[in-house]
């Protein structure tokens, strides 16, 4: 997620709160052998409140990011929360 975040940064993540929207930085739950990851929401399906709404997530450092370009969209329900602060 360079240049936004660097390894070792501490992030405050909020689950719940307002609906996720494109541009938000989110934590995505581990799945399919992938660890828990932090990515930015790139685009979303038409039903933001549905758990199965597809969300396309991308890294801020595209050349070195494994994201929806590789593993496809993720269901909204796999988003753990939104990054609200770095400390």
């Amino acid at each position, binding site marked *: 997620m360079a240049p936004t*975040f660097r390894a070792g940064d501490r*992030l405050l993540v909020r689950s719940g709160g307002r609906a996720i929207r494109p541009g938000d930085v989110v934590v995505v739950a581990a799945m399919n052998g*992938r660890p828990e990851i932090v990515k930015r929401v790139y685009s979303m399906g038409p039903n933001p409140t549905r758990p199965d709404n597809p969300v396309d997530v991308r890294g801020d*450092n595209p050349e070195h990011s494994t994201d929806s370009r590789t593993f496809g969209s993720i269901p909204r329900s796999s988003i753990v929360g939104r990054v609200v602060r770095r400390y």
Partner: protein
Amino acid sequence: MINTVLRFIDRFSAPTVVAAHCDLPCGVYDPAQARIEAESVKGCMEKYAASDDHDFQGRAIAIKEERAEMVKHHLWVLWTDYFKPEHTEAHPNLHDLFWKATKLAGQAKKTTDVAVADELLGAIAEIDTIFWETKK
């Protein structure tokens, strides 16, 4: 202020670690990739020497240079992505070794001298030894 409080809380409740550019698909490293390309470089040199067909020789040179570039690429990936500061502490010659190996890959582009390819293979073998030591 809030940051101080958050850091204080972290002392009692450690934060979860999440990955940012999950290295998962790229977590597989092996100097064999560089070695195989270097063997191709050597093979092209030998084919070049054994042929008297100008067109074939031209191809052999072109492919040799392409493969030599791949050697550099794979070495760079190992050097910059796989090896960590603690590895260079344990193996202080690591940087020199990569410098030497990538230089040899560059030289292999300019020559059809098999000895250069052998030197290159030797340098990769040294890196390979260190690599597998770090895996123990």
